[in-house]
């Protein structure tokens, strides 16, 4: 399986410079080849495990609690205006 670095990088919102595409492609293909090992595992009729805790039905009561102040919420951004985060115009 050959990985299309350009396509995957786009999906992941990463910028991979042209001159590095090949390097990543080689490294990732090597890793993917190794991962192919899984194909020899017999998983017929085996359930998937996505939760290792075995927990179920964990919810919380619907009650409002305190929020961050506006200042705190914005404290780490470099770009803000009138209490809102500011970015380049989105078309």
């Amino acid at each position: 399986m050959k990985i299309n670095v350009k396509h995957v990088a786009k999906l992941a919102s990463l910028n991979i410079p042209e001159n590095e595409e090949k390097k990543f492609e080689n490294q990732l293909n090597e890793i993917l080849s190794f991962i192919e090992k899984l194909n020899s595992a017999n998983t017929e009729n085996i359930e998937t495990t996505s939760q290792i805790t075995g927990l179920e039905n964990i919810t919380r009561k619907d009650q409002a609690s305190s929020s961050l102040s506006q200042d705190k919420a914005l404290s780490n951004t470099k770009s803000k205006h009138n209490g809102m985060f500011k970015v380049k115009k989105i078309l």
Partner: protein
Amino acid sequence: MKPVIGLEVHVELKTKSKMFCGCSADYFGQKPNTHTCPVCLGLPGALPVPNKTAVEWCVMLGMALNCNIPLFSKFDRKNYFYPDLPKGYQISQYDEPFCLKGNIKLDSGKTIGITRVHMEEDTGKLIHEAVDGQEVTLIDFNRSGVPLVEIVTEPDFDNAKDVKEYLQKLQQIVRDLNISNADMEKGNMRLEPNISLRDKQQEINKKLPDYKVEVKNINSFRFAEKAIDYEIKRQSEILQKKETPVQETRGWDETKQKTVTQRIKEEASDYRYFPEPDIPPIRWYESKLNEIKSQIPELPDEKSNRFKKLYSLSNDDIKILIKDKDITNFFEEAVKIGKKHNLTPKQIANHIINKKINPSDLLPIKLIEKIISSSLYEDVNLDEIKKIVKEIIKSNPSSLEDYKNGKTQVMDYLIGQVLKKIKKKIDINTIKNILKNELQ
């Protein structure tokens, strides 16, 4: 060519707190970014914990729509990048949603299939503005994380009118369940129709057309109807030229009253869904589901049928009476009391509807009293009373003088004169008001 329309509706739940954190969900009109926390702001290290009430309300809605509630359900991550999505993924439901395969019946008897009803979280709000001469986008995350229920229908509609009726019915159900205000203006109900057209052959083979157009930015039921009609026309013109309409998302332009291209989807978005590892799955027990079901109040269709049976009212009357919970309750209370006084439901209904009675203005018993007293009087044309009042004043010139000089007891005399002349039982207050007017 017959239209094939499916509808996606999002309803914002009016829970006290957000879907996965304790921030207040009542964000409308609040100062920006004052209802956020590490969880809904997507700060590093934050973790989601589902809102119990939101989950139960979603199931309750599914039940009200005759859905099947699978006993096992889970949350999934829907991964994509957008500035209003703080985590870079939305916690939603993919292949194991809370509710499946429901239906809703229109007045015509036609059944609309509900594909699914599931739970997800809302995004932040984007505001496009010019700041210091530059065009920018501002982001407010107060709305981020508010619970949303998504209701998806099968592509069972074939005209805009039915869609409007469905929306009204859905809105009524949601309001009756008291889980959302479902106010399109406030954004707590949003809708997106998918529209395409198919030919006779596809219809016979029950095949869907190979394209569909999604329409966004519709802010009212009225515009939904217009947008759908516009799209049907636009698409049929293209198809008549033997071309296929482009599969895309279009926006409804209110000012131009047409749909416009927003962005062409080159490929279906790859959301890379996978089970949400931070939230254990939900397993329902029959007892809990029964408990939720028992909380469902009488829904519009049920109520409508009951009213018809019990009160023998017309469909139009029933529609008005059941629209507002307060009016419904007021009416039924009044009927109970009215029965003791031999008043019919129809009389009471007429009074409430014609006189536009506001239930918060008076108690049901007061309404009954009003009806009783007004029916003691005969029905006399106001113009007739006016005519007689004018005659009485003419034939009593000195009374006019006395009244103007402050001798108000002359009013009683004049009222008596009117009653004598008119020879009918009329509400004294009515005569008084007309006299007052004429004596000015």
